[in-house]
């Protein structure tokens, strides 16, 4: 075909000049896109996929700079264009949608005002005309009651709705190309499924070309005609989506696919997640649990309820008494939940954001005191009774989602790991150093890292440290709150493997909280589905995934994007 492609990128190189040297974020990327075509740009964090998107629309902030190469839109060169000329193209011919809809819209302005600003960027419109167009734009992205919603502020919308508004703004001027930078990553699966379906329809309807940047192969597979896989600023493989995902040519693509838990046999170690880990230190005799109670009812969570309400201050109480102020709204996060875990079992707690799964996990771990009900491990309560209950056992520990937030940035990781065991007398100060070294080795880190600070580690290494810190307390039960949610697929595979191994070696009982159904399927024996503070369904993992009973579970499973099945190897 001799037709001029809509977008032609050749040898694009974007470098960041930092004090530490030049970072080649995008290093010679070439691809082309036809009118109305959907292309997936896949890679892990740091692969340069987002920077590629920003380079195309000329929004690279210093110290970054497009060094080389060309970006042609319908034959017109965009690299080196005057800022004013580029601005005329942005939003009009190429527009962009970002990852986090909570951050992209200005919280201070109404949706209508923001749409109007975007309209006025390229045309002169009257107030009434702008409003009419805004309503039409909202209607186009399936926002119910668009006339009323125009005057809403972003915080009055849910995440999915906000992302729809962002898409509506991106579509305002009927651009020829939309670049979507992980637009559904911050959303729940069911919302993601809706947006994906709508996006597909809109693109087909308007004939807009789409570059869909994502780390999630399955999402890209459900949308894109062809796909480019990026690594270290270069495209390592490109081709038709089905071909790339079923017959990958490049070993990196193969490794990415192998690291996905959804493609592996549940419970097995994931490929590519191998690490050199030593055995954990032996259990400390004094603490070694002589399991007396019955192992079938090892962890008992009985009729737990937790409600969050603001405690009113003195003056507010007074005003409430006088009828001048209303009491603030309360949130019923967990509503009468009962769960029992066998010793050594791994229970997956699945739900979308706001379902109460994290709150339940924290109650189980003795971080929050439940309003009613109780939690016991091996017949012993996790929290003391009384008005101000506190945690009375070290046998349950927690691994949090964000290790950067959960590790003290001013403490060496060695001190962080030793802190708890020292405070509870599990080890003597003299032993601490060796103990820490053993644990670091057990989670696959160099024992010499003990003197480093959290910021000196990568995300995956930090999560390993967090695991070591939790396990150094010699727990029997570990609550994992989305421990792999913020990690890249290959790192995620390593952490999952580590958890599988440590769980076997230490005979741990796991409560694994996640929104990611495939990770839970891989790691857990049993699954409990949470919805609005209640458990709607629970049972053996295989059964729930094969034959879901509750409507919500069915919807949740249907919403998960699936990879095209690979030919059996």
């Amino acid at each position, binding site marked *: 075909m001799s037709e001029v492609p809509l977008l032609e990128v050749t040898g694009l190189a974007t470098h960041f000049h930092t004090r530490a040297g030049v970072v080649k974020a995008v290093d010679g990327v070439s691809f082309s896109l036809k009118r109305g075509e959907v292309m997936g740009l896949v890679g892990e964090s740091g692969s340069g996929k987002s920077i590629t998107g920003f380079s195309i*629309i000329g929004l690279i902030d210093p110290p970054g700079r497009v060094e080389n190469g060309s970006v042609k839109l319908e034959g017109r060169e965009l690299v080196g264009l005057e800022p004013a000329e580029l601005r005329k*193209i942005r939003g009009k011919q190429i*527009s962009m949608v970002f990852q986090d809809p909570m951050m992209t819209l*200005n*919280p201070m302005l109404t949706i209508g005002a923001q749409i109007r600003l*975007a309209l006025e960027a390229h045309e002169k419109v009257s107030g009434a005309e702008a409003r009419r167009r805004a309503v039409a734009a909202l209607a186009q992205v399936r926002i119910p009651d668009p006339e009323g919603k125009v005057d809403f502020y972003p*915080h*009055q919308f849910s995440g999915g709705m906000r992302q729809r508004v962002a898409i509506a703004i991106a579509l*305002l001027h009927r651009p020829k190309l939309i670049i979507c930078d992980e637009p559904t990553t911050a959303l729940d699966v069911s919302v993601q499924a809706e947006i994906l379906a709508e996006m597909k329809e809109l693109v087909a309807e308007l004939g807009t070309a789409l570059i869909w940047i994502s780390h999630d192969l399955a999402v890209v597979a459900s949308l894109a005609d062809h796909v480019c896989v990026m690594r270290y600023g270069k495209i390592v493989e490109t081709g038709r989506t089905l071909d790339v995902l079923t017959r990958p040519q490049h070993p990196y693509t193969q490794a990415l696919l192998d690291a996905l838990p959804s493609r592996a046999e549940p419970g097995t170690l994931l490929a590519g997640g191998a690490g050199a880990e030593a055995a954990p230190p032996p259990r400390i005799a004094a603490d070694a649990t002589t399991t007396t109670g019955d192992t079938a009812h090892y962890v008992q969570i009985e009729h737990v309820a937790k409600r969050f309400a603001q405690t009113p201050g003195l003056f507010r109480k007074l005003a409430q008494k006088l009828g*001048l102020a209303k009491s603030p709204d309360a949130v019923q996060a967990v509503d009468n939940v009962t769960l029992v875990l066998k010793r050594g079992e791994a229970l997956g707690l699945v739900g979308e954001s706001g379902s109460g799964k994290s709150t339940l996990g924290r109650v189980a771990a003795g971080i929050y005191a439940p309003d009613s009900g109780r939690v016991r491990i091996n017949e012993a309560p996790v929290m003391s009774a009384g008005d101000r209950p506190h945690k009375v056992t070290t046998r349950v520990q927690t691994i949090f989602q964000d290790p950067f937030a959960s590790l003290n940035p001013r403490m060496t990781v060695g001190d962080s790991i030793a802190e708890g065991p020292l405070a509870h007398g599990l080890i003597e100060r003299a032993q601490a150093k060796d103990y820490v070294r053993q644990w670091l080795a057990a989670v696959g880190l160099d024992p010499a890292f003990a003197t480093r600070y959290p910021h000196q580690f990568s995300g995956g290494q930090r999560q390993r440290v967090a695991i070591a810190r939790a396990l150094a307390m010699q727990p029997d039960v570990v609550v994992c709150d989305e421990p792999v949610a913020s990690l890249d697929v290959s790192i995620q595979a390593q952490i999952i493997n580590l958890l599988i191994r440590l769980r076997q070696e230490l005979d741990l009982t796991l409560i694994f909280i996640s929104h990611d159904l495939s990770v839970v399927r891989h790691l857990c024996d049993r699954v409990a589905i949470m919805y609005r503070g209640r458990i709607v369904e629970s049972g053996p993992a295989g059964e729930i995934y094969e034959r879901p009973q509750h409507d919500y579970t069915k919807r949740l499973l249907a919403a998960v994007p699936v990879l095209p099945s690979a030919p059996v190897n």
Partner: protein
Amino acid sequence: MLGHVAIRLLQALVVMLVMSALVFVGVYAIGNPIDVLIGPDVSQELRLQTIARYGLDRPLWEQYFTFLARVLHGDFGRSFVFGMPVMELILSRLPATLELTLAAVLGAALIGIPAGIYAGYRPDGWAAKLIMTVSILGFSVPTFWIGLVLIMVFAVELQWLPAGGRGETVPIFGVEWSFLTANGLSHLLLPALNLAFFKLALMTRLARAGTRETMLTDTVKFARAAGLSEWTVLRRHVLRLIAIPLVTVFGLEFASTLAFAVVTETIFSWPGIGKLIIDSIQSLDRPVMVAYLMLVAFVFITINFLVDLAYVGLDPRLRKGGAR
């Protein structure tokens, strides 16, 4: 919203009450006003009479409650020195200070915020570096020294502007204002500039920090990606997003300048409230001191309340009743 206002009013009442007690006891502890009021050579009888006339022979708590009861009727007593009602005295001096303070704080905001936004928008340009250097001077050079230099340069050497006083005033609603005459404005300029210098530096730095942070957010990136011009991005997005800390500092600075413009007023012999309070402390004029400090507390509470209302006006997330 109404409930919120009610709560704030209750809190304000309690604060005012506590403040009145603290002030009264504190002032009571300083010196003996009788020694200032009458000469040392008067007879013992006259001395006792004077003490009784001012109620100074009563126990402290009784004096306090008498004071409180009178205050509730709007009577803060008479100045020992001037012999006129305290409220009248203070209100006659307040407009001069109000005028000076408003000129200083508004000037600082109107110059400092744009300068700060610019410095945050182009942090590596020479103009930004110049702005930041000047703002460091504004922080570190003492007010009285700048005042003296301003007088030396503009009043003594160049003789462009007067060195002190309010100049011609025009009455509006029975209150005299300087800013309505050219002569009055020329008198206002130097002291206002002197007062504004520190605030200018503060506003500039705050606006710069906020802008630098905001420019990196997705909100700004998204606006740029939609093709908005840089000017629109700064005016409609950035300014709104950095407004809350600016409003906070504006309110606090306004209140504290209103209450404590003493140094500048002294240097430029501006007949404001700051000079009055210094004089009354020297002469142990208790009613003036008490009334003045109560007024300061009142001003702070009022301005804080207004700032809170401004938050609600600026940030829709603080408004209640939004349907999801």
